[in-house]
């Protein structure tokens, strides 16, 4: 960011008197505003698309009143949430009750910071990117526990405890299923991982097709991430038909809205991680995005990345409206007795493959057969 600020000062003559740190700070704020605007727009449009997809799957129309075909429904929902009364139940623990939505909102938004949107489009390319996402996604657990406990409501308490147990149980398979991509790239930086999947093979450079074990770990990750973000086959913390809404039952207005927005934010972060770690990220098939002119390389790679990520989001919505909810004991059994041992054996398989074949994937071996 500082290098960008220095080049900007050199390029624009009247900035000469402004110190570097001020320009860098303004740039950072601008980047932050753009990322926040993207996140909020995605969360709004995502809620509309979710309802439309639900309508299509259940053979009904879905929202169709506000604007043509109901496309402005999410704006109306947002305005409505802000205009509602912000009430705190009399028996609630007031400071904790008010704090919980901020934890959830900021925690889910923090994941957007390291999403590699394009060749040079990343808010902060941390050298511990994958690790960072794992860490900040745990902030949501604190928010959910706080919300469930401070509401002083039995539904909320049960939902909060269930939510915390579920998210921490599924965090282990999520973390272990991401390791194969880290091993292949030899780096935790998301940009390095995306670059390691580049090359002129198009889609065959993706980690998904590297070897049978990475192919399997993609599905392990997708299943566990679906549970970690409380999507429907695993939406026990919310379970509107048994817990009436779970940990957010006492919330109203915009504070409820934050839980809702965070859910969609998590959805995008999961889809973006899936894209970056297994589906080649912003790599454009048969092109080296880095060698294109800056603006075209970034625009094209941004389009490719968003296309892949939104496809994953649509698949998550499809799963969400297709499968029925499972029971708590089934949920815990799936995580501890199936996913965790499977991810361990999968990890063993990946490391054996990388040792035996010296880090080469199947597409690379086939390519070397033909010279």
């Amino acid at each position, binding site marked *: 960011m500082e290098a960008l600020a220095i080049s900007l000062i050199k390029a624009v003559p009247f900035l000469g008197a402004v110190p570097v740190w001020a320009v860098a700070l303004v740039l950072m704020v601008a980047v932050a505003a753009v990322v926040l605007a993207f996140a909020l727009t995605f969360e709004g449009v995502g809620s509309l698309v979710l309802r439309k997809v639900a309508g299509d799957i259940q053979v009904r129309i879905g929202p169709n009143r506000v604007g043509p075909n109901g496309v402005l429904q999410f704006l109306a929902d947002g305005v409505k949430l802000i205009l509602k009364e912000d009430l*705190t139940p009399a028996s609630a623990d007031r400071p904790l009750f008010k704090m919980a939505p901020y934890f959830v909102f900021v925690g889910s938004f923090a994941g957007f910071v390291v999403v590699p949107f394009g060749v040079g489009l990343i808010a*902060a390319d941390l050298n511990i990117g994958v690790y960072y996402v794992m860490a900040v996604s745990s902030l949501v657990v604190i928010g959910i526990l706080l919300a469930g406990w401070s509401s002083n409501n039995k539904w909320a308490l049960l939902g909060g405890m269930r939510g915390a147990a579920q998210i921490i149980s599924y965090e282990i398979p999520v973390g272990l299923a991401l390791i194969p991509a880290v*091993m292949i790239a030899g780096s935790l930086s998301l940009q390095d991982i995306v670059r390691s999947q580049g090359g002129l093979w198009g889609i065959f450079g993706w980690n998904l097709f590297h070897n049978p074990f990475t192919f399997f770990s993609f599905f392990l990750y997708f299943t566990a991430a679906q549970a970690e973000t409380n999507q429907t086959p695993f939406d026990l913390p919310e379970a509107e038909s048994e817990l009436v809404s779970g940990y957010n039952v006492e919330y109203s207005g915009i504070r409820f809205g934050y839980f809702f927005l965070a859910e969609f934010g998590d959805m995008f972060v999961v889809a973006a991680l899936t894209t970056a770690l297994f589906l080649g990220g912003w790599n454009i098939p048969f092109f080296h995005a880095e060698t294109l002119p800056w603006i075209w390389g970034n625009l094209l790679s941004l389009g490719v990345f968003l296309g892949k990520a939104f496809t994953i989001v649509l698949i998550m919505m499809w799963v969400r409206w297709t499968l029925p909810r499972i029971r708590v004991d089934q949920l815990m059994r799936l995580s501890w007795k199936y996913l965790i041992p499977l991810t361990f054996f999968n990890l063993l398989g990946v490391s054996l493959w990388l040792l035996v074949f010296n880090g080469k994937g199947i597409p690379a071996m086939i390519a070397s057969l033909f010279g």
Partner: protein
Amino acid sequence: MAGFIETVRFSDPYFPIFVLLVIALVTAVGMVFLSQATGPRKYDKIKYSVYECGVDPLAPASERVSVKFYLIAILFILFDLEATFLYPWAVLFRSLGLFGFIEMIIFVGILMVGLVYAWKKGALEWQ
């Protein structure tokens, strides 16, 4: 102020994250203020009571929670730490070679014994 700014390293890769989180928090708090400024505010005893599907709440919700949740939390700490240890190993996997592989098999093997023990003791049953 000027002295403080000299000490801040703007090239630090974590600085944009800090700026971003501050802006997210400011936006979140701002929207709540907007909501409080524009929303209605009418007191009603029933409205401010705890929601229990229309029935008067029988007892406060600060009951004891099933021990299963604590067991899950303890197991989580063990296995999450283990996953944490696996990440540096994964980054250096290529250069460690066979040595790193065998070391990690021993490490994971010991933890798998732990998982099997918890499994046999019934810590993973949810009844």
